């Protein structure tokens, strides 16, 4: 049998030409002798299920033991609280993603920051600190916003990686100024003692990346200079 359009010889019994899709006339209804069987492979499930189960088990045991021990010794959580919430924080950051086949960082990053904020908040409350709302929380929030933005852009925007990187670096520079501001507000230190230096370093580096994005020859040059043979 030949394909009338392509002129190639075809397997007996094939329904249509594999190249152009032209139906093949098969009056005798010859069955095709398959080059390959029909059996599809089982989808290999690449999860970390066993690891996730093991660590969940270990975490539950640790938390329970800590709780029982502290309650017996002190009648309250005492230092055990740090450990228990520490284990929980570790669990959220490291173990929780293992349960998923493709953990989406756009969802998991904010969750992680939320967990961190809660933990730090707990410590602040335990030690009767006055630094949580004016210092720790804002810093965590700024970092979270930056990380989530970069990760989201990196994941869903195909082009302009250099602009994203440059923008992120400059934002980091701003963030250092804000950190100093919160430091001043909370601990009464002098403003603008160090952050302007860090800001200018970040700013120059960020602008360099953006320029590399705009100015093609520089991009090509960087590509060439930092190229490693495949």
């Amino acid at each position: 049998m030949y394909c009338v359009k392509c002129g190639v010889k075809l397997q007996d019994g094939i329904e249509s030409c594999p190249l152009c899709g032209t139906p093949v006339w098969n009056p005798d209804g010859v069955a095709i002798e398959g080059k390959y069987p029909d059996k599809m492979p089982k989808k290999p499930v690449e999860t970390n299920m066993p690891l996730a189960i093991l660590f969940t088990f270990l975490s539950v045991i640790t938390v329970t033991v800590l709780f029982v021990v502290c309650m017996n010794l002190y009648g309250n959580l005492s230092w055990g609280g740090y450990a228990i919430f520490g284990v929980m924080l570790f669990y959220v950051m490291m173990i929780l993603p293992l349960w998923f086949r493709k953990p989406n960082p756009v969802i998991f990053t904010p969750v992680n920051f939320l967990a961190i904020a809660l933990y730090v908040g707990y410590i602040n409350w335990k030690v009767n600190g006055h630094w949580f709302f004016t210092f720790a929380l804002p810093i965590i929030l700024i970092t979270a916003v930056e990380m989530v933005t970069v990760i989201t852009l990196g994941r869903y925007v195909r082009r302009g990686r250099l602009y994203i990187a440059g923008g992120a670096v400059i934002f980091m520079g701003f963030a250092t100024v804000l950190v100093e501001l919160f430091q001043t507000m909370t601990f009464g230190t002098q403003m603008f003692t160090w952050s302007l230096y860090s800001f200018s370093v970040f700013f120059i580096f960020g602008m360099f990346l953006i320029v590399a994005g705009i100015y093609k020859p520089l991009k090509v040059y960087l590509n060439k200079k930092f190229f490693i043979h495949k």
Partner: protein
Amino acid sequence: MNTKWFKLDTAGLIFPAIKRNNWINVYRISVTLTEDVDPEILMTAVGNLKKRFPSFYVALRHGFFWNYLEEARVDVEVKEDYAYPLTHMSSKEVKRCALRVFYHQKRIAVEFFHSITDGEGASIYVRSLTAEYVRLKYGEEIEYTAYVLNPSERPKNYELEDSFFKHTNGYANKRNEKVAYRLHGTPLKEDGFLTLTTGVVDSDILRKKAKEYDCTVTAFLTALMIRAIIPIQEEEVPKKRRRPVVVSIAINLRKLFPSRTLRNFVLAENVGIDPKKGEYTLEELTKSVTSQMALKISRQNMASAIASNVLPQQNLLVSLAPLPLKNLVMDMVYASHGEKHACINISNLGKVEIPESVEKHVERMEFIIGVQRTYPNNCSIATVGNTTCINMIRSIKESELERRFFTSLVELGIPVSIETNRR
């Protein structure tokens, strides 16, 4: 008992770093016999070769600084074939055994994770396996050669060497290549399915036709492949934005340097044209491809290409970087440079010599490479006797490239039989 282990060879280093959840560099060599395969005997034959080919029966393991291959603790699986070749080899599987064997009707197929060996090494293994199978099944007396190894002999040191280190000239090539056109298409519904289109041609007719154009079969098929891709780009991209059409050709370095290694000793060179410069006739294409190949595939130029691969390993700073960092860097470099400069790979195993006692039981031999991480199409060729099998694989729906390529052979007067695994 102490298990054997092997450092990855220079070419093999990259593959563990660049694999993905759904992609890994695996390829297949299969032989089709004249009779149905007996799986029991095949299993015995596979077992019998283990001592002779220690670097093949391995699993991929992680060290602190580098990945390495370690003697597999499980037997190589011998399984009934699936609906398509090169089903995904998961990370878990490579950690158990990076080699697998399939059978279906008259066909024996072996799939190799590329860190084990290259096409040439793999073809020696498959030929030796076929010989052992034929010996067990039909009681044939085998004439062992350099390509069909005697399983009762001991492995030689030169078979296990990393030949890259022996033949580097220490002077790395500078590369300055343009980004090539990217083939693409509609992804298939069945995740991971690969459509194989095999064009079977008479090798004598093909060779004669190539000779008419004053070139080798590889150069001839490369020129035809370029000619098939040009109009695909034309239909889609306006003239000003058209990019070079380039084929990456696998070069068996054993042909240029004295080496009989069974590890990887292969590199790729890119050959192509820039459609912005004008239109090309087939004569002009074959001429251009032939001269580019002559220029690039010289012993000196390849020694420099080898150097670019060897030098980073000799750098102490690079060597001392922890493995995850190396993996990350290699992956990033591969993502930005590894597949940017060509549209498709062509890998021609050439004429595969088999001793008479084995060849009479063999109908054909096929070489099938998988799709690349970003190329949806790839092409691999092997010849046994006077049958050449041109295998084109794809992960997309469209068969446009295959149609253009194979019909161009027909138009030149080379009869082609087409087979496929798609129903």
